[in-house]
């Protein structure tokens, strides 16, 4: 039997899914973070988690994914944010029209109790004609009851709404989901049926459903006056002055915590520790087995040795930095701050052809550009997706790279950090404006649900960070080994020297960097941050570090995000974006080299 979880965005579907199947899906306080479908098992049943949607049709990628998943459902579990019952009931009513058994889970009941909200679950159960369970999935409450309910026999599907019985034949014979899509004026189904609903009918159905939802909410749900502090904070966060001041404070906080504390102190300490204990131990140990100076010895314990420098960079440098960034991002996501940021920046984003929603992939890009490129699916249209993908590939440094860059620049003092930020920001605006002018059409206006602000939950933040660090090590470690192997082999065969001579004029002449940094660019192809790590080693003047940091930020995305880029944008556009990044990186880098004091 197939159990499909469905609900509005940000209602805790992923937590319920985890409770049922033991499988972890990323959880955040931002609408629309589940873009694809996750599957798990509950006994002999398959459980499917779907992206959050406000209604069923095929307007957006999430809705298309959710609708297709619901076709396979034997039972639908509708997860509802009890605090938002009037909103969520709209989808609940649609789901009960699909001719399949439905179980409604009222989630977030802990907050309902805390805020003394009146919610009559029994009354709702009777009115809807489907089982209604209470839960607080984050605390594990109600999961056992849900499991039991799903283990027992499924109830009958709810009765179809009255107006369906009045439908003419081709429509009545459609599958319940197709019938719903036909009402939604879905182009494919209008073609199948041969005619659409009468003009204005869709609105009539919508209004009727909305009214039914409001009636239910009115009878079974009453909000107590809510606490005032989230309201006040909300207002401050979205006021242009205080809001931007908060963004600035946040950036300074990141600079101080990740840049100074983690990147300099912690990394310095970790590096020193590993270099004085682990590295000599490996060298002496290895000397017993392999002749020092031989090919294998150099591959394993040489300058880019797999067991020495690779391990040191990965564990002492990249790991603390990446952890710092993921932790910060997890806190921001879980608190519900990002939609506020989206709202605050909407007016500005319109100037680069985007609406505030684009904040999400862009901010996530600071975590991992690859993942962020996938999240561009939440954007309203192709135009927005193209613009954001280009901006991500060109101007957004990922956490690993950002960590290293912050570390490098923090060593130089804040004027350099500021110069770096301004250069990248200027380019961001220039590229966005250019694309906005070039691409036909105009940005779709913002329409964004603002989830309540909440204190980040340590559990969520911890899980999310852990998951991302594991992903990072899983993805980064092999590539890093490979990259260092390539470099070391290049050194031994003289290939690297040749490449450095080839790139020499570009690196020394145009970018005015030491010839040795050519290897940074070679490494940058493999993973963006590796290139930046290579800058650490080169002996450079402050303005050269700035040039290097800017150029490598804009330089080609890593292998993983290149693959995603090609998959999402197609070979032609993907290649154009990829080559464009090299051109833009070198152009900007050269200018910085000439203009920086």
């Amino acid at each position, binding site marked *: 039997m197939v159990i499909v979880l469905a609900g509005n965005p940000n209602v805790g579907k992923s937590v319920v899914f985890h409770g049922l199947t033991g499988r972890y899906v990323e959880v955040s306080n931002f609408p629309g973070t589940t873009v694809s479908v996750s599957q798990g098992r509950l006994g002999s049943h398959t459980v499917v988690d779907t992206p959050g949607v406000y*209604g069923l049709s095929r307007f957006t990628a999430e809705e298309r994914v959710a609708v297709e998943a619901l076709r396979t459902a034997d039972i639908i579990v509708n997860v509802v944010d009890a605090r*938002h019952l009037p909103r969520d009931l709209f989808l609940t009513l649609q789901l009960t029209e699909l001719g399949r058994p439905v179980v409604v889970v009222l989630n977030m009941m802990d907050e309902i109790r805390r805020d003394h909200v009146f919610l009559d679950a029994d009354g709702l159960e009777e009115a809807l004609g489907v089982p209604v369970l209470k839960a607080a999935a984050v605390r594990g409450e109600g999961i056992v009851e849900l499991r039991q309910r799903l283990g027992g026999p499924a109830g009958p599907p709810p009765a179809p709404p009255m107006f369906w019985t009045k439908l003419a034949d081709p429509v009545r014979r459609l599958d319940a989901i197709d019938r719903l899509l036909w009402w939604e004026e879905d182009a494919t189904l209008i073609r199948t049926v041969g005619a659409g609903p009468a003009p204005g009918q869709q609105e009539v159905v919508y209004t009727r459903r909305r009214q039914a939802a409001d009636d239910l909410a009115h009878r079974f749900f009453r909000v107590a006056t809510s606490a005032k502090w989230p309201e006040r904070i909300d*207002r401050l966060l979205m006021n242009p002055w205080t809001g931007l001041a908060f963004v600035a404070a946040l950036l300074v906080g990141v600079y101080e915590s990740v840049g100074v504390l983690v990147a300099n102190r912690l990394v310095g300490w970790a590096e020193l520790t590993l270099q004085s204990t682990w590295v000599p131990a490996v060298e002496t140990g290895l000397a017993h087995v392999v002749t020092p100076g031989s090919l294998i010895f150099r591959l394993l314990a040489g300058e880019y040795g797999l067991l020495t420098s690779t391990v040191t960079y990965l564990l002492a440098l990249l790991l603390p930095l990446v952890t710092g960034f993921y932790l910060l991002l997890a806190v921001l996501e879980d608190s519900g701050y990002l939609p506020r940021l989206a*709202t*605050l920046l*909407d007016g500005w984003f319109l100037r680069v052809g985007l609406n505030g929603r684009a904040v999400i992939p862009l901010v996530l890009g600071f975590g991992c550009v690859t993942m962020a490129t996938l999240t561009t699916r939440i954007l309203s249209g192709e135009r927005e997706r193209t613009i954001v993908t280009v901006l991500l590939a060109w101007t957004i440094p990922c956490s690993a790279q950002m960590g290293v860059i912050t570390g490098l620049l923090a060593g130089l003092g804040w004027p350099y950090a500021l110069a770096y930020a301004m250069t990248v920001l200027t380019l961001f605006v220039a590229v966005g404006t250019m694309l906005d002018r070039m691409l036909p059409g105009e940005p779709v*206006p913002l329409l964004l649900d603002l989830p309540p602000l909440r204190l980040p939950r340590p559990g969520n933040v911890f899980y999310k960070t852990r998951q991302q660090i594991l992903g990072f090590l899983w993805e980064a470690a092999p590539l890093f080994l490979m990259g260092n192997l390539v470099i070391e082999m290049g050194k031994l065969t003289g290939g690297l020297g040749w490449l450095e001579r080839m790139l020499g004029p570009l690196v020394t002449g145009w970018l005015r960097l030491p010839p040795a940094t050519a290897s940074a660019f070679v490494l940058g192809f493999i993973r963006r941050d590796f290139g930046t790590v290579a800058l650490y080693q080169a002996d450079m003047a402050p303005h050269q570090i700035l040039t290097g940091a800017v150029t490598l930020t804009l330089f080609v995305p890593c292998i993983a995000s290149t693959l995603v880029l090609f998959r999402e944008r197609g070979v032609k556009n993907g290649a154009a974006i990829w080559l464009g990044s090299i051109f833009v990186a070198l152009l900007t880098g050269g200018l910085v080299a000439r203009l920086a004091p």
Partner: protein
Amino acid sequence: MAERGMSMRLSDVGRGRRVTVVKVADPRLRPQAARLGIQAGVLLLVKAVVPQGPVIVQTGPVTVAVGRRLAARIEVHPWTRKPV
């Protein structure tokens, strides 16, 4: 009553005002707006207005940021306690 002639755009409504929606004149976003509870006949409280930016409205317990260009296409009436 005079209300008929007092129709205005959501983008012109000040903070703290209550309005009822007359029409969402953007066919592309109308269904999405309806799902978030913004549709003809609904009472909205304007919670905040970001200058040059979105209008933040509350309907029931749900808070929604409405982009300025969309807000300019949502026709509203000032809300009066006594229904006409």
